[in-house]
């Protein structure tokens, strides 16, 4: 191991909200592009990743800052163009404006969520100012998690086990003509582990807003459960209990199919399918009080256990995966309600699942084994019979109890 630097010499560069800077950039943009209505989005992120690889005796660290600015220029009928650049100074702004100006406009006011909000110019705040995670705490968590993973595999050495944990803070500021002004800050922790060939469906990722929400035991339990999952041929059709990650994966895909953009409400659903999208989830890694177009965001019911009652449309659902993406309709945290019923005995249990979408109305689910089972999403959502057990945060963006599905 080489020289070890003093921890976190970067205290002076942890992102802090400075809305006046983005506001001053808006003034500059107004001078440069007086012909357009302007929206500016500024994102500043710092993050540190600590990784353990099978070939490295010690942990590997990867840390840094990223900052970017995005511009939307709207014409009088609400069509807009988009440009974005790394950095947040005047040259970056001018690059983004030039890029936006060189495009033909798209969209229009009728698109609703793709417009941006209005306000009186005073900043709406949504701040999470907790301390940034220390590297020592991250390393400790990672080592505990990987040791737990080794135990879950029943092994005595790490072998091909590898993983990483990443923590960081993001500050976002949105300002625009029409008075919209919102500001958000978030701490986030992500972790991923892989046991190579022991896990055919891929690595296990978890995410939360604080490390205390990332339970090593729950993480390891996923691995233990996966090895006990129904094998090839043990589940081909009929009732199945989807636990942990398998439930999360199904929820993510079904929500997109049944409640995604353009979905019509009213479709019948099973009594176990009671789902909300919750951008206000205090441990959700995405979301917030305002969406990324400046509209107020709130919990939205998607289904009530009888029928679909909501879909991913309307204002308050526009989010940006990065500063280089314009806002688009996305789920934040999908929360499956319920979990009070007893699990049926002697029902096959599946802890991992991958959905292959052959067509919009025809899927193949791949479970460990591998076992492949075909499904139609609109049928499948009606076959979500019940949910039980505690809700688990086993996939980023999904919180779900176990689901009983009559496949």
């Amino acid at each position, binding site marked *: 191991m080489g020289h070890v630097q003093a921890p976190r*010499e970067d205290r002076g560069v942890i992102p802090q909200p400075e809305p006046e800077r983005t506001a001053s950039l808006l003034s500059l943009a107004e001078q440069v592009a007086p012909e357009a209505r302007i929206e500016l989005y500024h994102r500043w992120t710092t993050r540190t990743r600590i990784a353990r690889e099978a070939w490295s005796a010690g942990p590997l660290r990867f840390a840094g800052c990223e900052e970017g600015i995005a511009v939307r220029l709207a014409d009088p009928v609400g069509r807009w163009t988009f440009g974005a650049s790394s950095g947040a100074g005047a*040259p970056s702004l001018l690059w983004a404006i030039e890029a936006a100006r060189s495009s033909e406009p798209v969209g229009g006011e009728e698109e609703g969520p793709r417009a941006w909000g209005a306000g009186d110019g005073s900043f709406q705040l949504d701040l999470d100012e907790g301390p940034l995670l220390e590297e020592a705490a991250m390393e400790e968590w990672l080592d505990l998690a990987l040791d737990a993973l080794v135990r879950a595999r029943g092994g005595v050495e790490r072998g091909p086990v590898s993983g990483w944990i990443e923590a960081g803070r993001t500050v976002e500021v949105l300002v625009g003509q029409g008075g919209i002004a919102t500001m958000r800050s978030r701490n986030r922790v992500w972790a991923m582990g892989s046991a190579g060939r022991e896990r055919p469906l891929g690595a296990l990722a978890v995410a939360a807003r604080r490390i205390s929400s990332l339970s090593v035991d729950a993480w390891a339990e996923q691995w233990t459960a996966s090895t006990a999952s129904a094998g090839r041929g043990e589940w081909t059709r009929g009732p199945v209990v989807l636990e942990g990650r398998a439930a999360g994966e199904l929820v993510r895909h079904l929500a997109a199919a049944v409640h995604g953009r353009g979905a019509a409400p009213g479709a019948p659903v099973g009594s176990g399918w009671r789902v909300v999208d919750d951008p206000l989830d205090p441990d959700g890694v995405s979301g917030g009080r305002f969406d990324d177009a400046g509209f107020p965001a709130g919990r939205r019911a998607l289904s009530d256990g009888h029928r679909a009652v909501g879909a991913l449309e309307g204002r308050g659902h526009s989010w940006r995966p990065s500063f280089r993406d314009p806002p688009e309709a996305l789920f934040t945290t999908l929360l499956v309600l319920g979990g009070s019923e007893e699990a049926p005995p002697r029902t096959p249990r599946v802890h991992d699942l991958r959905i292959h979408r052959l067509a919009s109305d025809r899927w193949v689910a791949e479970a460990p084994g591998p076992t*492949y089972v075909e499904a139609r999403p609109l049928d499948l959502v009606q076959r979500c019979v019940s949910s039980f057990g505690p809700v688990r945060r086993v996939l980023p963006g999904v919180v779900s109890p176990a689901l009983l599905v009559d496949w």
Partner: protein
Amino acid sequence: MKRSELAFGGADRNRAWREALESAAGLPAAPGPVRALFQEEREDLRVVAGLDGVFDVVHTRLAGLSAVGTDPSRESFVSDPVPDDAAAVVLGLQLPQRGRGEAREPGPAPALDPSGAREAVEVLLAQARRAWGGGPLRAGARWVSFLQSVRVVGAGIPLCEDERRGARIRLEIRGPMGQSAVVEKALRPGEAVDAERMCSAAVGRAREREGAVRASPGEVVAVFASGAGGVLLHELIGHALEADTVESGESLLAPAGRRVGPPGLTVLDDPALGRAPWRWDDEGVEARRVCLVEEGRVAGLVHDRGTAGRAGVEPNGHGRRSSFQQRVRPRIGCTFLAPGRLDPAEVLEGLSRGIHVRRIETASVDTGRGLATFRVTDGDSIVNGRVETPLLPFLIEVPTLAALSMLDRVAADLAFDTCVGSCLRDGQPLATSVGAPTFRTGLVRVVP
């Protein structure tokens, strides 16, 4: 200095960066030498006309710098850097971002042409409707292009510059009776979109697919159309022979010399042939063609500097990162099956029953167990040596060793980029290419 002539960035700015990076690389770093600095400037353009009629034009710039500095286990990065940042990043300092922008020199002006890309998309959509000949048709198209300049320098690594670019266009059409087709084209520098040809191919295939039926499940012989089978080799062989996969014991194909296929099976990876080629990798190593499997035996791995150093071999220019914010990994760039001597029709001869795979959209592999799955979105049944009925999309499961050992007929019609996609590994996307002639293998399983 190793240099591709950089047109991107501007002469003065490029000169300032070269000086700053070479100076930072020469810092008297204690206790160890600076391993490497990486600096990139990238422009991306995406023009999408969705099947729902919604247009998107997204034009962005990404700039950043990263370095492994005095502590070899620690890499630092910063976005939108100025040349003076190079020394600080070497020292492992995270730099304050906010406000530095005013002091930096203006970056290169936007170089990609969104109006031209949008026009290409609109011409393609209009041509598709004309070729359809009236009646309802849903059509969508997507243009993706990028331009990237990269500089790498470090201890024992002379300053290296590389300029990379790529463009591709995709057309998807859907008729009212379930007809559907996708045609993609990777565009080489200066190559224009041949809208008439793309649309003719798409419309013709969509009409053929009007009566598509379900594939019969079970084990079957598969013939992969020219180009399409490259995806199979990318998954079964390419990923299994990325050196870090072998290093971690997750490759069923290791070790070198192992027989994995018949004597006629030769698979290579050559980044220079890709749709987004690189001459130098992200560690300043010249990209070399690697023979992965030669005459049926494992012959080589793709390496970055790290895996090569640990294996005691020379790196071969396959160390890539999706951006300055990600760590370098060994990556395959353009994996292809060497052509054989048969006519494509000869590959089908004597085959009483099988499937003909024309298009694969997604794939994944478990390199340790040697099992891959592929989503086939266009294919046909084969009966008595003839391509017959079009099939609805289906999934195939392919066991690596069995499929390779039964790969017994290879045609001479090598083609690249008929299935264009990005490869996602460890969360890092990379614009990769695949190529293959028409070939057949004896064992795939149509599921469920």
